[in-house]
């Protein structure tokens, strides 16, 4: 078969319009731009020095064997191979994910329930007292709180078991049983952290216009139905922020399991950041520790990206 079609006549390409010339900035605008740059400079320098450089440094270090004392030796990808072959590291990733799921879910639930309760009819002074009380643990050092909790939850001499004894409950191995230790760590963590989500929810609830609730009430929505159909959808942007921050924090949990259980019994509460600390500063394998750090970074980025992607479906903006 032959092509009988004639080729289209060659036409002249239209001339591209002249590139728009950047408007000449006045001296005043140049001054403004300089001022803006000056204002931003400390932040940019800070981000580069304290965020970008350490991240790049960790990635580079993860390709070397380094024990602080001897010069670094290039390791290629062997640190990553060692990490994937190390059962403790894999268990720590599993523990961290389990911890994240339960800690964040519980934290959001408790914070939301308390915020909704406090948002009801309550004297202003009492509301202030509760807000302060719920926020207070957040400003305390996680390490010192964990030391106190370690005493409280001690199986043999702790106050918690002593109190349970009054109602006939046998001593619970809060921190020394593989079944109970993670639960205890989650409880302590949630107790300390939920104040942040709580404050966010209180702010979010205050931002919901009363008219919408009134309109819903006119349509016959009451109680739980009102919360499910009106309050929660309108609170969804706040929920997204609280869950993103909560998940990032939970994936980096260190102080509570380190002080309360030191990762035990066995590896049952060992988290990824604990493994990074132990591998680097106790076993002097900085390359492997950096490789674990890089993997944690990737995990956090992936989970956060997934959250934002999913948020398109359930986050509603007014």
């Amino acid at each position: 078969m032959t092509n009988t079609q004639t080729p289209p006549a060659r036409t002249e390409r239209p001339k591209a319009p002249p590139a728009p010339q950047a408007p000449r900035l006045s001296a005043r605008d140049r001054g403004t731009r300089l001022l803006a740059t000056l204002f931003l400079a400390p932040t940019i320098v800070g981000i580069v020095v304290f965020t970008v450089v350490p991240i790049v440094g960790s990635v580079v270090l993860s390709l070397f064997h380094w024990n602080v004392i001897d010069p670094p030796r290039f390791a290629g990808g062997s640190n990553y191979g060692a990490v994937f072959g190390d059962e403790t590291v894999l268990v720590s990733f599993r523990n961290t994910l389990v911890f994240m799921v339960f800690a964040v879910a519980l934290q959001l639930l408790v914070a939301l329930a308390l915020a909704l309760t406090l948002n009801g009819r309550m004297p202003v002074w009492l509301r202030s007292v509760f807000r302060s009380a719920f926020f207070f643990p957040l400003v305390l050092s996680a390490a010192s709180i964990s030391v106190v909790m370690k005493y409280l939850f001690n199986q043999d001499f702790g106050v918690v078991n002593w109190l349970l004894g009054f109602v006939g409950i046998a001593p619970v191995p809060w921190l020394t049983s593989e079944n109970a230790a993670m639960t205890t760590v989650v409880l302590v963590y949630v107790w300390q952290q939920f104040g942040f989500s709580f404050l966010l929810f209180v702010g979010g609830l205050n931002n919901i216009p009363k008219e919408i609730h009134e309109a819903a009430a006119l349509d016959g929505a009451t109680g739980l139905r009102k919360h499910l159909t009106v309050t929660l959808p309108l609170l969804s942007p706040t929920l997204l922020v609280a869950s993103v921050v909560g998940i990032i924090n939970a994936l980096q949990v260190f102080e509570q399991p380190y002080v309360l259980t030191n990762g035990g019994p066995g590896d049952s509460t060992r988290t990824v950041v604990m493994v990074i600390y132990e591998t680097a500063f106790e076993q002097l394998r900085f390359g492997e520790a950096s490789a674990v750090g890089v993997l944690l970074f990737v995990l956090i980025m992936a989970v956060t990206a997934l959250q934002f992607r999913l948020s398109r479906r359930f986050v509603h903006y007014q």
Partner: protein
Amino acid sequence: MTDSHLTRRRLLRYGAYGAGAAALGGTAASWERLTGADIPGRDDGSLVVATLGPAYGPEAIRTLREGFRELHPDIKLQINAVQAVDWSDFFAKILTQVAAGTAPDLVYVATEGVQLFAQRLGVALDTWVKRDAAELKEYFADVHPSLVESMMYEGSLYQLPVEFNAADMYLNHQVLRRAGAPYPPADWTRDDFTTLLRDMKQASGSRFTPYFWTNRLWGGVVPWLFANDTNLLAESKAPGGEWLWDSFYPAGQRADRGGGFRWTTPQATHDRVEEVYDYLASLVQDGLCTRPEGGNGQNLIGVFSTGRVGVTPAGGFWAGGLHLAGMERDGFDVQYFPRWRTQRMQYGAAGYALLRTSKRQEEAWEFIKYAARKETLARLFTTNQTTPARRSMLTADRYQETGPAHWPVFYDTLDRFPDTGPIPAPPQVAEVEQLLLKHTGTALASSRSVRPALRRLQGDLEKAMERDA
């Protein structure tokens, strides 16, 4: 009429100028602090000594510094008390200083770090010890050879021990009386020990724990392993060391001494190790002792002094600790660790290690000798916060106020049982300790957990020992 108010833009601009100027001024004013240049002793030719902060308070540091100045007015001395939770934390901080290029000249190092420092960072003291042998004769005559041997690595000496603590058994008199039990004899056995725990439990009710122990290398499972004539890692001795033994110790004391300990091959699945874990698991199951993770030194003094614990392993340091906690000297006593297959016991010692990076090695050696002098130790260890390495310092006077009545036990642990040895601490000690803690927790969950946990411990130890420290 003109508007005399500042515009917002102008206000912001002046604010930015002011903030910038303040930032520059502040940075210039605190430049020395920011760069650490104002730290006393840095780059000013001082001999820098790093000590474990919690063990050396300001008073101890002043004592050390002033005493050294009297002896060596020409040497500038700076003592840095590094705050750390434990020895591994302390070593991590020292290594960070090494990495930053600000290494001290001398580091106070316990048994846990002797081989790590010797292998990687330390300078052997052999040349100086031989040179100053006449001066050191009195020191070695006063210090048990086992302590010295624990500071040797592959035939060379790296530290002069100044203190040690053996894992002896502390007993609460109030609890003994309640149980109608006498102070146990020196040759008591593991079975006597178990019977005592049962009697204590029976007499004291459910809110009482007879035996409190901690999950760590020192005072944890390891003393029981020693008593059962085994160890976590097979123990042998490096050749060499005759240069020291022949010069300073009589034939009777230098027999079987070598060039330092070697801990190489893991033996966690050995029958005797399993026996020890089975025994401890049975104590846990019977409610006769704390779960290993439950115990730590922080709450121990409180529960012991109030009679909620009957027995615990501790060293001479506890005499000072209990005294400071308000316990009377006759409220407690101390006895050797009970016999099983042997009555070999466990200790940890400490001294000053000289770093290779030091440019003041002669001055550092003078400090090492000064720190091991009897006058120095006497001025330093006034509250019995530890056991001095010098035998002659253990006197009735020293324990008159703090107790306990049987204080000679502290040094006799070495003299009466000369095979008493240091905790197993190869250069990979940090990982070894971590694995021990982890798998001990799992092993003691139930009697059925022992064997699988020890198998995993063995596998992990093998991997750890194959790695470079």
